[in-house]
């Protein structure tokens, strides 16, 4: 399985109405790797993801998918290469898991083309990969938060894109489900070489699971690279305005940040 699709932004600016959120941003995503975007609230993480997935048009600059401006490509063609799981997708009332996951096949179907055996296979595989096969006939609105998030990821998997963008896939999940979702994405990356780009809130999980970290600050990129290089106490202080210590995560060896705050931080090393 080769994933040589590239996604890059150059001189990218974007915003809503008069309000500019991202300004002159350059970014090249590493193919076949897991990239996590972190940064303070309202720093433009989600906006960046929306522009990268052509949900939002840039005010200047461009997003290039395999070297072509993404906003000029046919929508369905893009959707066969690049998938996005938005922050709060809506499950229609009463829809079953299998039916919802089947919606992921939409970009592969023409105006008249019927549902094919390949579609069934993609759906079944996505259900198996996310451990949701046992839930296939259940209505989505009866599921727990963690199960539901896995079902949404299954839908994105059924889309079979080489690039998958996720906007805070672990928000509102208990910590065990957060880890479950991130493990699942790691499996996906390892098995299929899918390029994964996700916005994450939890810095330590981001540093642990990502091959590549992008730190954002006020619509710009403060630093990008391997967690061991860019995830430093200095960087966290600049980006989040938080006094902190970064130590080595005893479990994974990745950097791990400990916030200090006003009431602690006098303990000895």
């Amino acid at each position, binding site marked *: 399985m080769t994933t040589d699709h590239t996604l890059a932004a150059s001189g990218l600016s974007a915003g809503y109405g008069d309000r500019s959120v991202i300004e002159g941003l350059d970014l090249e995503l590493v193919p076949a790797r897991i990239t996590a975007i972190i940064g303070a609230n309202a720093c433009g993480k989600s906006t960046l993801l929306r522009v990268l997935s052509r949900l939002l048009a840039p005010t200047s600059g461009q997003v290039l998918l395999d070297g072509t401006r993404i906003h000029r490509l046919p929508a369905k063609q893009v959707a066969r290469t690049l998938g996005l799981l938005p922050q709060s997708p809506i499950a229609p009332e009463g829809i079953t898991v299998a039916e919802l996951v*089947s919606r992921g096949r939409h970009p592969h179907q023409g105006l008249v083309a019927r549902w094919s055996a390949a579609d069934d296979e993609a759906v079944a595989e996505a259900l198996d990969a996310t451990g949701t096969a046992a839930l296939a006939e259940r209505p989505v609105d009866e599921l727990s938060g963690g199960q539901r998030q896995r079902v949404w990821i299954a839908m994105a998997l059924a889309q079979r894109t080489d690039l998958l963008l996720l906007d805070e896939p672990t928000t509102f999940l208990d910590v065990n489900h957060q880890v479950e979702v991130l493990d699942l994405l790691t499996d996906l990356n390892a098995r299929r070489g899918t390029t994964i780009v996700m916005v994450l809130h939890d810095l330590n999980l981001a540093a642990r699971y990502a091959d590549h970290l992008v730190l954002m600050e006020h619509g710009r990129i403060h630093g990008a690279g391997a967690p061991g290089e860019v995830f430093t106490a200095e960087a966290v202080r600049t980006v989040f305005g938080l006094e902190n210590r970064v130590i080595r995560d005893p479990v994974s060896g990745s950097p791990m940040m400990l916030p200090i705050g006003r009431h602690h931080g006098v303990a000895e090393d």
Partner: protein
Amino acid sequence: MSAQPSSATPPSTLERVRTERRRRRVRRTVTVLVLVVLIAAGFYASLAIGHRVYSAGEIWRVVRGQQVPGASFTVGTLRLPRAVLAVLVGCCFGLGGVTFQTMLRNPLASPDIIGISAGASAAAVVAIVLLGLSGPAVSVIAILAGLAVALAIYLLSYRKGVAGTRLILVGIGVAAMLDSVTSYVLSRAAQWDLQEAMRWLTGSLNGAAWGDVRPVLVALLVGGPLLLAASRDLTVSQLGDDSAAALGVRVQRLRLVVVIAAVGLVAFATAATGPIAFVAFLAGPIAARIVGPGASLLVPSALVGALLVVVSDLVGQWAIGTRFPVGVVTGVLGAPYLIYLVVRTQRSGGSL
């Protein structure tokens, strides 16, 4: 991602996915067939039943164009256009209604609740009574008014995006204002009788003629295929704008095409029969209950709409001592459901 061997998938999941999908398809096909049979039965009853009941043989000869004393006029000129119009406007209201409900993800957001039918109706009344127009001109004015109302509601409820509830409340207010315009204009037209007034307030098939059928048929032949072509995109758009866009749906363009087609259908139907109460509102949710969740509801809703109008007209005409216009019967059916829905939405904020 095409070279994934199928052997990686345990057959059980694949089998279950297939079975589940086939089950849904069978249920959908059976539903559509049953609805078609029921509509055909209602259609036949509409032709046969009346002050004089005609036999199947007589009706068949009239439909084939032969002269049958008595039946040619009663069935051919009075009952046949009425029954055909009932089916057509039912389809139009059903399609228009479910399109709005799906697009706005709210069962209350149907054109007859949020004032689009009321706008088309008020415009038609103004065109006929005050401007002295008739025929296609009335339809054109009705559709323009329908689109104008849709735009007005959208703009009035816009505040950093359009929230469903605000749009619906604004729409209900606009509908009430437009209904009063209709009442006012009708009250000034002294030569009009109660039947005619009822037509523009609740909808009626009285006096239906072939001249009324043609524009509705054309609207359905243009708008129907447009909506059906957008049907899968519309289904995907239920997942939210971002998800739909991520799946390759051009959300803005879809919305534009679909609103124009749906308003067109509702406006043409309204210009012919008046805003038959609650048909657009009821058809989608009823179809959703019988087809099951997830499937495209366009065709089933069109059929449910047609069935509602045909059966309600039969009931209004012959089941009760007095003859009521069809809109009174559908109104009686729809009002309790509206109350139920408002109460339930208050509790859970549900969708279609």
